[in-house]
């Protein structure tokens, strides 16, 4: 889990990765970098939560069953955030998997902090 990568002068810790992307955390900046769909985008705490909400809200099953005329792409736009994703259904499924895995790891990190660092000492 503690695999660190250095890109220019910022130190990243990989939070979670899948074949098509990864999420890194920067402790010094207090934010996350999402490497997905061909770009590396920076998300602060609030924007990461907004992204999570936006992605989780998409009804994937409905989109799979719906053979209507609308295109098979979803635009994920987050208010007050520089990034915007235009994703295919398959990419949405992957991004959701990436986020779910990342939040599990962040939760795990939180538990480790509580049990190991905050209580013991």
């Amino acid at each position: 889990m503690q695999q660190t990568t250095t890109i220019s002068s910022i130190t990243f810790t990989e939070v979670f990765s899948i074949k098509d992307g990864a999420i890194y955390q920067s402790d010094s900046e207090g934010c996350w970098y999402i490497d997905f769909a061909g770009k590396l985008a920076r998300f602060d705490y609030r924007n990461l939560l907004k992204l999570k909400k936006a992605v989780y809200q998409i009804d994937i099953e409905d989109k799979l069953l719906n053979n209507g005329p609308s295109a098979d792409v979803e635009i994920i736009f987050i208010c007050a955030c520089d990034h915007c994703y235009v994703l295919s259904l398959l990419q949405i499924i992957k991004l959701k998997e990436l986020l779910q895995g990342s939040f599990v790891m962040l939760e795990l990190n939180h538990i480790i902090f509580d049990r190991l660092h905050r209580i013991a000492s």
Partner: protein
Amino acid sequence: MKDIIRIKCLLSSDVETLINQQIKKEAHSSAIYLSMASWCNRHGYDFSSDYFFKQAEEERAHQLKFYKYILDMGGTAISPEVTNIKIEYNSFREVFEEALDQEINITQSIKSIAARCTKEQDYITLEFLNWFFREQREEEYKARRALELFDVIGEEGTGKWQIDKHVGQIAYNSEA
């Protein structure tokens, strides 16, 4: 790796979601009481109308209390949408029956937030909720007392007029 989410916010996302849902419920209660105040006023029950106007204000205050708590703890408070507020009631008594039902639902809802807090050892939110438990004690008491007036006084003759007059006098002043 730093625990950034915890640094930013004291509340877990589950507790935050539950409190945001509670904010919506309080807003809904407030709107319903306002609607009850309107119905009572239209039917000549002035004391009851005043009583519900006051209740509406109280629910608004509850909503804000939850709202500010989320913000103070670093979370995101969501201003709720309030829809489906009924305008008509079948009887004077039905208004009070629904008022009590609503308070019981609110009590139950706050209990389930507390259960979640206990599960994740969020004693801070639990302590915050204590104020609401005391408040619900009073809210249920008043709603129950109001409804009891219908049996004690009876609706025949000038009964409804009497009931209305007494609704304005209901107060909870337990020291317990």
